[in-house]
């Protein structure tokens, strides 16, 4: 401890030993495990019994659960929750850009689909092509991009 640089000492001093107690770590682990199990049970046993157009609601559920898992990993495992506000903000504010990226690009993808369906009759035909036997690959798959 004697040959600490000044910045190291301040960094060390700010960390509370209690924040690393194993109880909190294991609690986070159980939360993550439970959320993953819920996702899997819904994905394996519940979602397949619903018609396909319900999928958007299941996806919304997965997004919420994934967001919760991401929060726990960043806040507890990566310890960000226990850092000072300046550090939290320098990470959290740039990450907000993702909200816009996801909204804009998924909107764009959906728009591609609608445009092709109205403007390109070949694309509609391609989308209706039924796959034969799953054993060997289709030659036709190469052309569809």
């Amino acid at each position, binding site marked *: 401890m004697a040959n600490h640089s000044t910045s190291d000492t301040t960094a060390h001093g700010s960390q509370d030993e209690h924040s690393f107690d194993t109880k909190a770590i294991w609690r986070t682990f159980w939360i993550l495990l439970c959320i993953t199990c819920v996702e899997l049970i819904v994905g394996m046993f519940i979602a397949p019994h619903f018609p396909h157009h319900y999928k958007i609601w299941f996806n919304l559920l997965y997004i919420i659960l994934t967001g919760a898992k991401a929060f726990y990993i960043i806040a507890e*495992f990566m310890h960000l929750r226990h850092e000072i506000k300046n550090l939290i903000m320098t990470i959290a504010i740039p990450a907000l850009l993702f909200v816009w990226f996801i909204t804009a690009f998924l909107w764009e993808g959906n728009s591609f689909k609608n445009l092709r369906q109205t403007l390109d009759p070949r694309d509609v035909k391609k989308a209706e092509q039924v796959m034969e036997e799953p054993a060997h*690959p289709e030659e036709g798959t190469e052309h569809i991009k």
Partner: protein
Amino acid sequence: MAESVTINQKWWSGGKSPFNVEYGKLMMWYFLMSDAFTFGAFLISYGTIRFSSAAWPDPNHVFSSFPFMGHTHLPLVFVSLMTFILIMSSVTMVLAVGAGHVNNRARVIKWMSWTIVGGIAFLSCQAWEWTHLYQENAWWGRNPFANYDGTVASTNFTNFFFTITGFHGFHVFSGVIVNIIMLIMAINGTFERKGHYMMIEKAGLYWHFVDLVWVFVFTCFYLF
């Protein structure tokens, strides 16, 4: 936590570190931010293509195998095992960081070793999964799986799957290498001579980030 930070402290008036962390740790956070945007770009382009497609293969159908189980239909079981392994190795990594905080070298060595074991186990699982899919004739540019409604799927599905899980697997691989270096340094007593285990903490941040990315890859490829 809170008691070490006075609310009205003037962080930006000079004389103190405004983020209250070591330089290297702050830079690790910024590196992880840039890496997050790289992964984000991959996953968002995947989402864009998927939204622009009329239909897409069903993950419950594609990912339904388990080693030594033959053709038994076990949807998502293997990938849940992989998820469990990665979360578990994240826990052992936090325990190693915690042991470093109280300068307990023996426990750092123990938990770092378990983290490395977890990382190698995850990579082995991924190697099996890739081999299995390759044998089913799935690869970059080849897609044997039909869409959920039975129509012909494009190769976008396999291209994105192998690129993104491959990029993530490469991150896990580098994380394992970094962790092995940290373990060797801990065994040699490098951190004890330095007087602190800050490097374990930085390696830990990277390792948790890899786990964090897997959470999103898991949702985007196996659940949606």
